[in-house]
């Protein structure tokens, strides 16, 4: 029996139905770009491309499943997921695997997981669920409860120590508060207070974290150690010039000067080979994704939907900005991958889960 054309058409429609067209288009373009860069960054090896295709397909499936679910049903999973996340973080604290001095992973026999990654989604979900539940009886102290919900995972991740992820998780929590209507006074007051706390925080940082900040200010101070990555990636970007050196022609890349060039520093590879023009194109594509996500957020009907969609959108922005800012030497080196471009399965799953939830919220208004 052969597949009838109309059957194929119906299958296609069924797959397409829950997906957001513009978002899929923009993400697809970024993804295509990422394969091109990865091929070059991996010295024209196909192994990582294969892997990337596999985990991206897996992530897309998860996204599709989420996109066709109702936001309310996803929302109900918030407390258990948050709870599991906290328990896993505690497990990391007591039984985690230590690599390079930080304890971030949990050994599960066949694979390792990084529970802080789960928190990037679980925390905003939990907060959005919480505000939705008490929407009508909201008092000031609900914000305090929310602050505690943010503080618990942040403290655990900070302890690992993983300052970068801590800030990302804290930011995702803050974005929810921002969209549920945390008063401007509090936001501005908080910013002033945070500024005033800087010296205290500075003292609490680990030595290596302080050095990263210092390295950002003056990378030449420690050119052989912490400054090395930044100097080399800045040379890569700068020498790319307006038009780039051309695909597969990046000297910095192919002479091994760029560290982590398929993961956190992949942007340096892209930037060296495609130049300013390439950078503008990529930033423009990210802006398109963000604009579309913003539109979906604007159309969300429930408080949960607004808060969650807003938090996902802003988090996505933060990942992109922090990664490019770090590689370009205007932000300290923290382990944040470039969304949809960096090689790495865990981060990709998290991103697509976010996109799936966003589409689910977008579908709910129809």
């Amino acid at each position, binding site marked *: 029996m052969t597949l009838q054309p109309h059957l194929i058409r119906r299958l296609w429609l069924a797959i397409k139905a829950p997906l957001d067209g513009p978002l899929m288009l923009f993400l697809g373009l970024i993804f295509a770009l990422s394969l091109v860069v990865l091929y070059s960054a991996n010295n024209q090896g196909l192994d990582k491309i294969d892997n990337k295709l596999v985990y991206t397909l897996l992530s897309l499936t998860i996204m599709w499943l989420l996109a066709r679910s109702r936001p309310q049903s996803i929302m109900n999973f918030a407390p258990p997921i948050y709870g599991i996340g906290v328990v896993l973080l505690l497990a990391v604290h007591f039984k985690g695997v230590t690599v390079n001095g930080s304890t971030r992973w949990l050994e599960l026999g066949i694979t390792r997981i990084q529970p802080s990654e789960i928190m990037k989604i679980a925390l905003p979900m939990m907060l959005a669920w919480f505000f939705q539940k008490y929407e009508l009886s909201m008092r000031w102290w609900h914000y305090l409860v929310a602050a505690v919900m943010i503080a618990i995972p942040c403290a655990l991740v900070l302890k690992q120590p993983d300052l970068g992820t801590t800030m990302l998780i804290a930011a995702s929590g803050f974005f929810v508060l921002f969209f549920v209507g945390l008063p401007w006074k509090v936001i501005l007051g908080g910013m002033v207070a945070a500024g005033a706390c800087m010296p205290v925080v500075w003292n609490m940082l680990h030595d290596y974290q302080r050095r990263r900040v210092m390295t950002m200010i003056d990378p030449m101070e420690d050119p052989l150690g912490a400054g090395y990555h930044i100097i080399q990636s800045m040379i890569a970007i700068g020498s790319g010039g*307006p038009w780039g050196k051309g695909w597969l022609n990046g*000297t910095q890349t192919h002479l091994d000067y760029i560290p982590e060039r398929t993961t956190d520093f992949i942007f340096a590879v892209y930037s060296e080979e495609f130049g300013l023009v390439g950078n503008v194109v990529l*930033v423009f594509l990210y802006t398109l994704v963000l604009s579309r996500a913003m539109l979906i957020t604007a159309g969300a009907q429930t408080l949960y939907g607004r808060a969650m969609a807003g938090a996902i959108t802003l988090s996505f922005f933060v990942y992109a900005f922090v990664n490019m800012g770090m590689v*370009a030497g205007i932000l300290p080196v923290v382990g944040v991958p470039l969304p949809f471009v960096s090689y790495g399965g865990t981060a990709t799953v998290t991103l697509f889960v976010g996109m799936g939830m966003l589409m689910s919220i977008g579908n709910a208004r129809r």
Partner: protein
Amino acid sequence: MRPTRFKNPQAEDGQFQLRLIVAYCFMLLMFGILIARFVWLQVYQYEHFSTLAQNNRISLLPILPNRGLIMDRNGVILAQNYSAYTLELVPSKMPDMNATIAELAKLVNITPRDEKLFKKLLGESKDFESIPLKVKLSEEEAARVAANAWRYPGVEVKARLFRDYPYKELTSHVLGYIGRINQKDQERLDDEDKSTNYKGSNYIGKTGLEAVYEDDLHGQVGFEEVETDSGGRAIRSLRRTPPVNGNNLKLALDIRLQEVADKLFGNRRGALVAIDPQTGGVLAFLSKPGFDPNLFIDGIDSQSWAALNSDWQKPMINRALRGTYPPGSTFKPFMSMAALETHSIGMHDVRPAPAFFTLPGSSHQFRDSNKNGNGSANLAKAIQVSSDTFFYKLAWDMGIDKIAPTVGQFGLGRPTGIDLDGEASGVLPTKEWKAKRFARYKEEYRRWYPADVVSIGIGQGFNSYTPLQMANAVAILANDGVAYKPHLVQEVVEAKSGKSRLVEARPDRTLPFKQENFEYVKTAMQSVMKPGGTAWRLGIGLPYTMAGKTGTAQVVAIKQGAKYNASALAEQYRDHSWFVAFAPVDKPRIAVAVIVENAGFGAAAAAPIARGLFDYYMTGKVPGSISGDMKTMPMDTADDSAATSD
């Protein structure tokens, strides 16, 4: 069903839309900043970065600092560096490693041991690291390989500094050794943020002083910014930050004294620690047998390792630092201090010292080492003849609570704080200690029995101390209670400026005991070396004053009614021979603790070693029995010849 809203939905929607717009504008602004940064880097700074990338390129080469030297108190070098060529391979640059090794074997002599060691290092290192295949090439071999190196990518001949311990076994338990940085070391360096300073370094201190003073000895890495061509060869140097060589260590130890001690031990097992009571400086620190630390530097081959590990004499164990033994009768002087300080006995009280001691209501006989007993004695006499029954009774009368606190003041039963890692703490028995030690056993094992104290009185029972602790305790006693922390390193000397940092000879603490009690016990110990004392033979012809105490530590318990018969026991079960001593008595310059394992009575084996050591230290004369074997140069004669040539 939509919930009824009490708030104004329009206003709330407006709020939300406003926030969305704010967020959106913020994002655009930040992306704008990013683009501005790109423009700056890729347009305005393009020339600059382009040059940097084009010349490519600039590479930073670490310049290794020279590791600090270690020398004894007279400047004799104990750990040094020498330059030699090595043949090194970088696996990641080699197309076919085994073929290349086979080719290289035609140029230089590569032994199976070299190859085995290489395979081992290969497993522990990363691919891009340079791994030595053969160290210490001859000039000719180096030239041959260098001439052919272009044919084999990834093969390099490098001039490198090697560590060498010229005194081998003699210093193994003091200096320890350095070894190649392994995964674990690397993780620790990363944790402590020292990995930058170890760029290019292959070695790190693993044990002994090499490990404890690693930060001083290693120095600060330098780097050279060089321009390289596309093949990675350096064209010219742009900037150079010189390395800072490691600091030198000057020890309190006298290597010649150490060798005298070693030769006096001969092939016997045991430990010896000699301390200057007035500074805490460790003059000799010996654990027999030792091992050759040079074997460990480039990774020990499995045969030598197996040999060291399976040796029943356990040469890898630092007996002076980590071996704990019952002190036997060498405990009696400290026991006496406790008795006098707690007024448990008067200086002139005469008490019986019979052939055996029994507890009230028990038939168990605690025997004296002198099978006829010693009649009766005062405390000083009891020390001189080492009467066991006298001290059994004394301990029984005092109870553990009066013994442990005073004895503990001498540092027994806790680490002395010497500058070596892994010191054992030993056991100063107390009721609390027993309860804790046997916490998992039945109550009857945990309970303190009054009888427990009896054998503790003569240094047996639960007593267990390291030779270092005993030497330290004797030094404190000799110095009338002014205690110094024992230390091997006397000075840390900066290689460049010659500035030195002294390890301060500051009293650690002063024991709150009566001077007359110190005098009494010290005089009694001096009488041990005189006619009637247990070590009287060794006091014959002393050109200086000396005080000592013999000891015999039981390894196995002898059955009731049976006699100790050394020849009937396998060697490992024979008693340990102890001796502690100091000299001169008035103003002590040296205090020593010697243990010779399974060698019987203290006076027989350990005491002659101490006497020979003191003779050398006090008079400069090497004991006749060993003078032919000495390898180290006598310092005083060397000085003399220098003086006469002036």
